[in-house]
């Protein structure tokens, strides 16, 4: 690993406009269950972190599960360049995510990062709406935090089935105005994310962002189109490599089939065939 890393320092000195990516061994600092299906895993590198944009992701090797062969992609959630730590929010969906949530502090995980292209950051003075659901809350919160706008200009809607499925994001009030929806009405607005009153007047926003289940993103995108507000979504297509060599993760776009892992995961909905 260290050797591989040193290589790159040499090779990339002064070279190319291509984004530098690394395979790096991280140590688990903490693994905190937010609720029964969502875990926040914080990982520390022994090397200075690469620069990470909101919406970029990492492909994580899942140790210890004989039934898991490939890595699994997760959004890079919280990033701390001082302590060289990153966090990922893992929602248990199947065998790989389940095994990942069982890692313990001190264990090592191999991460390939930073992968993909992040969200287009808002310009000064803009007002944004970021909508997250399911495993899609991570990139949306990351974006909110990195938007560098006053909290009243940054609205986040987080959707979940029930209050107990929501993750604790109180500290995000430092960077955003957070709203909740739940299918059962146990927290915030009763209904899906698009039932939230903010959707009544989307024209107040300069940009809308969404990540979550496909139907949710499509619903948000449809509303944004109606209101003629720029909308970016972050797709979660199945991936083998995560860095553009296998062509498994493609999404049909106006420019043909594009790799979600390199041309995305963030796409402007106008470019998608939705």
């Amino acid at each position, binding site marked *: 690993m260290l050797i*591989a890393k040193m*290589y790159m320092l040499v090779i990339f000195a002064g070279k190319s406009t291509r984004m530098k*990516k690394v*395979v790096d061994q991280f140590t688990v600092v903490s693994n905190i269950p937010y609720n029964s299906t969502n875990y926040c895993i914080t990982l520390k590198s022994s090397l200075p972190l690469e620069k990470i944009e909101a919406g970029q992701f990492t492909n994580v090797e899942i140790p210890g599960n004989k039934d898991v062969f*490939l890595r699994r992609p997760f959004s890079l959630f919280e990033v701390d360049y001082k302590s060289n730590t990153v966090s990922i929010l893992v929602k248990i969906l199947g065998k790989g995510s389940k095994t990942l949530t069982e890692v313990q502090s001190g264990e090592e995980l*191999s991460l390939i990062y930073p992968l993909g292209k992040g969200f287009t950051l808002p310009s000064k003075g803009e007002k944004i709406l970021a909508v997250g659901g399911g495993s899609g809350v991570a990139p949306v919160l990351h974006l909110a935090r990195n938007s560098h706008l006053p909290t009243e200009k940054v609205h986040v809607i987080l959707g979940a089935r029930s209050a107990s499925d929501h993750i604790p994001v109180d500290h995000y009030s430092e960077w955003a105005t957070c709203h909740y929806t739940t299918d059962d009405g146990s927290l915030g607005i009763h209904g899906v994310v698009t039932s939230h009153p903010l959707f009544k007047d989307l024209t107040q926003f300069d940009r809308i962002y969404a990540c979550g289940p496909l139907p949710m993103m499509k619903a948000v995108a449809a509303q944004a189109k109606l209101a003629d507000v720029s909308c970016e979504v972050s797709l979660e297509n199945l991936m083998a490599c995560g860095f*553009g060599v*296998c*062509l498994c993760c493609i999404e*049909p776009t106006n420019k043909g089939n594009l790799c979600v892992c390199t041309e995305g995961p963030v796409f402007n909905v106008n470019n998608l065939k939705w």
Partner: protein
Amino acid sequence: MVNLSVDIKGLALKNPVMTASGCSGFGEELTDFYDVSELGGILLKGITLRNRDGNPYPRMAETASGMLNAVGLQNKGVDYFISHIYPRIKDYNTSLIVNVNGSTVEEYVEVTEKIAELDKIAAMELNISCPNVKEGGMAFGVSCPSAEYVTREVRKVYPRPLIVKLSPNVTDVTEIAKAVEGQGADSVSLVNTFLGMAIDAVTRKPLLSTITGGLSGPAIKPIALRMVWQVSRAVKIPVIGLGGIMNATDAIEFFLAGASAIQVGTAIFKDPNIPVQIVQGIREYMYRHNVKDINNLIGGLQV
């Protein structure tokens, strides 16, 4: 110093470790991680005469120690390759090999003619074994007469080293290998993927848009190794081995079985550094076991 360089009938490789076609793009993505001059060669993503969108999503399913893919040769066609991609990659300090596909012999020949013009392409790999699309030519690769036919026609228009990539989906791979050898192939590479399938028991649907796809990864290594061993004893031309190679030990096994060089495919998805680590691991093995020249390992199985 140990010697790692091998010669595949005119294709001189600085070391015997290449990346497999379709698993390393056009090499560019690897440069995001390291200097590709460390590699013996890069097998470029399969190209066809015309632009191909490939198969619909989903194109991938994980299996036990492997994966199925149904990419279906998505590429922008040979002309785009020549005008846009070749200029960007031609000066990589490693052997670049184009993987050529077609649905008719005419298509194969037409692509080959264009590739033959490119100075910095060291060799060509004729893919008659992609199980995912008609253009991948598996129809050509599973019978001797058709394999002979396409090899003969392509051979006529390609003066540089010609590698023919064989399908493992056959009763006797040595027959096909001998057939293409007879038509002037300089080398055979094997194996391409095994035709496989995956089903979602809950939705009752196939996991791939194309129902079936190509199986790769460590799962297939024992079969690939057997085929390389059989073929290397059946033909006189050098054999390039691949199929599930994940580390230097796997690579050594292929050399012992008779491969003169190897390719690394699916392993790259797990870690793009693996091909470079394999080069280093082979070097260490050679020091440890006092092997001065990699060529002394080739076919060295003690039976």
